[in-house]
């Protein structure tokens, strides 16, 4: 017996080691959800390995980052000024676009509120440095330098400003593993932006994300954006995932897989954001940003559009140009341009209805007399040029157009509200008729 063990000692050790590991594998894969984070001894072993490997990686990563920082912040500053100007111009453009989108966003929120739709907003993120990978092609896992001490938990979405990266899997005290969307065992609910086709994103054998088991559809075009759908209860809805690269028919069956070019550069990740808190209400900061964006956009527009006091603007030949008021408000136009050949239809050329006699025609002489009388009154009026307001009103208040109360037809007849003839009764401020209704044609006939 002793000779048997001594003779086959090597083989027996190998068999024992293999058998123990096979049993260990069977225990691990027997869990209800093999993709869930580990527990017990497996987690302990994994934690040991990560804790041994990660400190030197953090150190090396920190040294590399310091060198890069010195180079980029103090040495490599060529074209920075030009780049700054370009970025400012781009920022102005983005603010204008944001302004145009802000109203759509608010409308969308109102509609979602009406439909009791639960939108998820990102409340809090934790920035983390990527310090390592699994090092194998079969496992697309990243190692980041933030863990449970920083508020991280398993199954938290990990993103970059460009798009989603993956989700946290095993979270240790100071480090965490992130399962990338390119891994074959990952999964994320996505939606094609234009065609609104939903699907499940997973990694293929080469580590490229793909939407699996999609019904063939001619509308799916290369370059179409892909967003998270929010259906997986992990990734918030609307985050960028990537763009459609090509469609690959499945070898068996009639379905196809849509290969996705990820928006985030998964092969060159240095910093990521872990979403640690989401909610249904738009954060205060986001609302404030929207308001500020609208204000800034209007300022930019005011700067870009021709000014009201633009010196290069053509001179007003009619002499009706209105000066700006002190508070910058625009005064409404004073009076319409004077006609070269006045007739009965010319504004301010028709006597008021109270002066008209039923059945009497207005002659050209009467019309001319009314016109000269009207002009004399206008010349002596202290509010000339800014009429339509009482003279006692301050100019600032008068500059703002104030809606008038609805007047009865008899008082709406004077065609030029800015030129009230002296004989005409003043329109009541409360809108009640002060004179009995009379009907008069513009020509003065009945």
């Amino acid at each position, binding site marked *: 017996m002793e000779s048997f063990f001594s003779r086959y*000692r*090597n083989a027996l*050790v*190998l068999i024992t*080691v*293999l058998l123990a*590991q*096979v049993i*260990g*594998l069977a225990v*691990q*894969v027997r869990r209800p959800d*093999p993709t869930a984070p580990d527990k017990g001894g*497996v987690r302990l*072993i*994994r934690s*040991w*390995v*990560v804790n*041994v*490997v990660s400190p*030197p*990686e953090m150190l*090396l*990563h920190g040294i590399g980052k310091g060198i890069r920082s010195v180079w980029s912040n103090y040495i490599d500053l060529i074209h920075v000024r030009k780049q700054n100007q370009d970025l400012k111009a781009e920022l102005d453009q983005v603010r204008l676009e944001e302004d145009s989108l802000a109203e759509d966003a608010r409308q969308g929120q109102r509609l979602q509120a009406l439909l009791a739709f639960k939108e998820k907003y990102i409340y809090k993120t934790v920035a983390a440095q*990527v*310090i*390592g*990978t*699994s*090092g*194998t*092609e*079969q*496992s697309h*896992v*990243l*190692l980041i330098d933030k863990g449970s001490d920083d508020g991280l938990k398993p199954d938290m979405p990990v993103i970059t400003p460009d798009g989603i990266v993956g989700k946290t*899997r*095993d979270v240790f005290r100071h480090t965490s*593993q992130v*399962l990338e969307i390119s*891994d*074959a*065992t990952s999964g994320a609910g996505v939606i094609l932006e234009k065609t609104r086709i939903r699907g499940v994103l997973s990694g293929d*054998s*080469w580590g490229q994300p793909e939407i699996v088991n999609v019904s063939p559809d001619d509308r799916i075009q290369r370059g179409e954006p892909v967003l998270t759908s929010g259906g997986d209860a992990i990734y918030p809805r609307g985050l960028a995932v990537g763009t459609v690269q090509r469609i690959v028919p499945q070898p068996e069956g009639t379905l196809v897989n849509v290969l996705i070019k990820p928006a985030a550069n998964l*092969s*060159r*990740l240095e910093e990521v954001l872990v979403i640690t808190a989401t909610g249904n209400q738009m954060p205060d900061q986001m609302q404030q940003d929207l308001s500020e964006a609208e204000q800034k956009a209007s300022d930019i527009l005011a700067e870009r559009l021709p000014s009201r006091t633009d010196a290069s603007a053509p001179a007003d030949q009619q002499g009706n140009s209105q000066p700006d008021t002190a508070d910058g408000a625009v005064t409404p136009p004073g009076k319409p341009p004077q006609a070269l050949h006045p007739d009965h239809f010319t504004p301010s050329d028709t006597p008021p209805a109270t002066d008209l006699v039923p059945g009497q025609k207005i002659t050209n002489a009467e019309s001319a007399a009314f016109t000269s009388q009207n002009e004399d009154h206008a010349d002596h009026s202290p509010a000339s040029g800014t009429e339509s307001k009482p003279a006692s009103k301050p100019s600032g208040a008068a500059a703002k157009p104030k809606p008038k109360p609805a007047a009865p037809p008899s008082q709406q007849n004077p065609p030029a509200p800015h030129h009230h003839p002296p004989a005409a009764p003043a329109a009541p401020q409360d809108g009640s008729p002060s004179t009995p209704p009379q009907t008069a044609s513009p020509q003065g006939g009945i």
Partner: protein
Amino acid sequence: MALMASSRHEVGAKSFPLVIYIVVPLLALGLQSLLSLHLSRFDLLDLPLLVTVYYAITRREPVSATLVGTVIGIAQDGLTHHALGIFGISKAVIGYMAASLGVRVDTENHGARLLLIFFFTLTQTLILWLLQRHMLGQPFAWHGIHEVLRAAVNALVGVILFAVLDLSRRTEY
């Protein structure tokens, strides 16, 4: 130089200082994890496999090679999200085979090392494929040309790495 061992001198086992046994595998794991982040195709290399093979063919003790391979493999599993034991099983088998072959083959020869590493890289991929695809039912990509290329890269790098590691060993008779 002959590929087969022909003298007792050639089959003499080599040993290393204890710190080398600990530091080199950890360094291999750390570099594998770190450099794969910055060099996109660095994951073609398998530094833990090269270290396992090197210890096995220099120590020429199947039992210790099996145990060393198991520990390195399980540590490599710890960096992935796979179940612990996939790399552990494959590297235990590789360690055992390499130590067994090391007794019969002149492992000081660079050509022999090149062929051994090439062979063991392909063998490990085959074991991983069997474990993941057929035992665990998980997806596993097997592309012939890609695997041959990977084996060739590992063999070339392994020959250089083995020459560097040779500097730290001492001969035992």
